């Protein structure tokens, strides 16, 4: 049904990552370890500093310059070897969904959602509260309240408990809690990153740290390679709360073209097949009103030329990604969208296949290497 090509053996990406390029020999990057690092680090929408710091360390050896927009997005910039034939913005949002303390009552923490939290998965979830009064970096372990079936009325049993009825219990006395926690403190899922069987990786915040890792992988591929276009790799802020970092980064960077890297729905029961993609069969390339048809076509061509398995992801309306914002920046920016299939989106147990992350990295790098003096002209043609 979809133009899925033969899956690539997982070793190919690894081999490429560790191969030596002509300009600068380098160590290979362990993308899985890097991704698990990113997932262990908090970075809720509007509060991305911790994950930005991890990323700054990872990107410094891979880029010519580190910079950013004025609201916290991080840019890793690679300069073209000669006069640049264009500038491309590669954007993956680094923020993740989470929760925020709104009220403290009798030692319990009421909270609000940051981003699209699914209230159904919250009761009984293990969390960490980044308690400012307890020293800022201290993460206090907690659990989200749930009411045993025994005490629920028949009516309650049929309903999803809304977020504003739930609380975090730190197991501390009311006085201890009041001493440690402040209104506005952040709450993250405590689920540690974990390798599942085969090639799968489980963690909270894989949306969108998986794509950030792919961006890191792309920069690693490009290291030592002569480029014809300038590349701005951006880890954007606040995607989950309205794409703020994509708006500001696209406006400031003024690119000739942009690619958003995000996650898409992995195949799982109960979802329509057309909206979901099997894990491990490669990244997807999107088509729809937010995306420039030439960007989609060019990404598919690069994928085919490099034997990267890649499915078409069709998006009739809002892509729900940074591409939505970048496209309408200034006088308009041609956008592409590369996505990594992910199961259980916006829950503490998001799952991706590492091969898809690696293939996304490879696709982005091969695409950047294929950018030449003629590509800007191609974008002027609306087929």
């Amino acid at each position, binding site marked *: *049904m979809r*133009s899925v090509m033969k899956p690539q053996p997982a070793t190919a990406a690894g081999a490429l990552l560790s191969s030596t390029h002509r300009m600068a020999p380098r160590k290979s990057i362990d993308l899985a370890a890097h991704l698990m690092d990113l997932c262990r680090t908090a970075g809720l929408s509007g509060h991305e500093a911790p994950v930005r710091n991890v990323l700054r360390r990872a990107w410094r050896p891979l880029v010519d310059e580190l910079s950013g927009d004025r609201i916290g997005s991080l840019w890793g910039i690679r300069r073209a070897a000669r006069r640049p034939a264009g500038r491309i913005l590669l954007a993956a949002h680094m923020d993740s969904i989470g929760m925020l303390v709104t009220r403290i009552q009798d030692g319990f923490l009421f909270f609000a959602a940051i981003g699209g939290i699914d209230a159904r998965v919250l009761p009984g979830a293990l969390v960490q509260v980044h308690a400012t009064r307890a020293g800022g970096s201290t993460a206090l372990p907690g659990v989200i309240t749930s009411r045993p079936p025994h005490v629920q009325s028949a009516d309650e049993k049929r309903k999803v408990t809304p977020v504003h009825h739930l609380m975090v219990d730190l197991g501390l006395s009311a006085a201890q809690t009041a001493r440690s926690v402040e209104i506005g403190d952040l709450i993250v899922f405590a689920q540690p990153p974990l390798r599942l069987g085969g090639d799968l990786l489980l963690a909270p915040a894989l949306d969108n740290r998986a794509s950030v890792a792919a961006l890191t992988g792309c920069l690693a591929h490009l290291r030592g390679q002569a480029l014809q276009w300038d590349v701005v790799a951006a880890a954007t802020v606040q995607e989950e709360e309205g794409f703020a970092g994509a708006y500001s980064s696209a406006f400031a960077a003024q690119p000739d073209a942009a690619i958003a890297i995000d996650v898409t729905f992995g195949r799982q029961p109960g979802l329509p097949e057309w909206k979901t993609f099997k894990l491990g069969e490669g990244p997807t390339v999107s*088509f729809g009103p937010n995306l420039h048809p030439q960007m989609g076509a060019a990404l598919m061509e690069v994928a085919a030329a490099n034997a990267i398995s890649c499915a078409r992801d069709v998006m009739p309306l809002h892509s729900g990604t940074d591409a939505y914002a970048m496209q309408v920046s200034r006088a*308009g920016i041609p956008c592409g969208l590369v996505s990594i299939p992910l199961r259980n989106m916006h829950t503490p147990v998001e799952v991706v296949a590492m091969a898809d992350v690696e293939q996304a990295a490879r696709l982005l790098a091969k695409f950047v290497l294929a950018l030449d003096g003629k590509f800007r002209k191609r*974008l002027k043609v*609306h*087929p």
Partner: protein
Amino acid sequence: MKPERAAKPAATLPGLIRQLSEAVAVSGDEHAVRQIVLQALQNSADKLEVDALGNVLATRTGTSRRRERVMAAAHMDEVGVMIVSIESDGLLAIEAVGGLDARVLLGKQLWVGRQRLPGVVGATPVHLLKDEDEKRPVAFDALRVDIGAASREAAAKLVQPGDRATFATSFRNLGGSLRGKALDDRVGVALLIELFRSTRFEFDFTAAFTVQEEVGLRGAQVAAFAIDPVAALVLEVTPANDLPPQPGETENVRYNTRLGHGAALSLADSSTLYPRALVQHFAAIAARDQIPFQYRQPGGGGNDSGGIQRRRSGIPVLALSVPGRYIHSPAALVRLSDVRAALQLARSALAELPRMPRRPSRS
């Protein structure tokens, strides 16, 4: 897939509307209308370009030495559906592109893809409907398009996910009224083509034929940024809900606009509050020149004005619309006298546009 070739642009206004109405240009794939527009303007535009999103921006230099720029916009796209998957039996699953009611698709013929394959949206025979389903509106995920392909493989040779489809409606001139699909906003596109070809203003005039209005006013936003005008006019088709009262009602007070009552000036809608000075200028010109006009009842809905008004440091914008019944359905209906009134008012009011307040400096 072979792109369709645009025919020579029609000479008369109804002829131009017919040609535009029958072109297929669902939001995000405005190619067919863009070709007609480019061809229609090639001899009158001093500058003609297509931007990164696919908007057509056409400029006629003004006669005055004051280098002010005024923008007028009409959107090329229409609501429709996107093929999202081909099923094993050769049927196509679809999703809405733009504000489209699934109920109006049941039992209709569609044009599918650039090659305009005929297809139909099937409906369960009424004999086999369960009682509760007879009263339940159908949802998009229950609709399938049948292009006559016997299998997934056969269908995949003709269409692919991402292709668009829209109503297969032939345009009809009913004598006084025009009936066709996508009159929202092909009537506006035709008006803008006519206005552009026939008039050279004092100011530089840029006509923006925009993309993706129906999915969030997206083309207009980037066009307004690029053009950076002192003022803008949006040419639209707005709903006319001027039907007799429903059983139980004594009077229809929520008509929005009425056919045959002239061009409609917007005061407020969900995307824009229109500057009083612009509204009054257009109303004054209409009254002086005896051009029929009406006010669109303030309320919901929106148009490219919302995308234009908030670009850069703010752009004064007005919407001038032709009332249309049954828009976003297989066949909308407009009155030709309203179309002509809108053209005349746009031309006269723009020609005498007062100087716009100076914008703050950008230092």
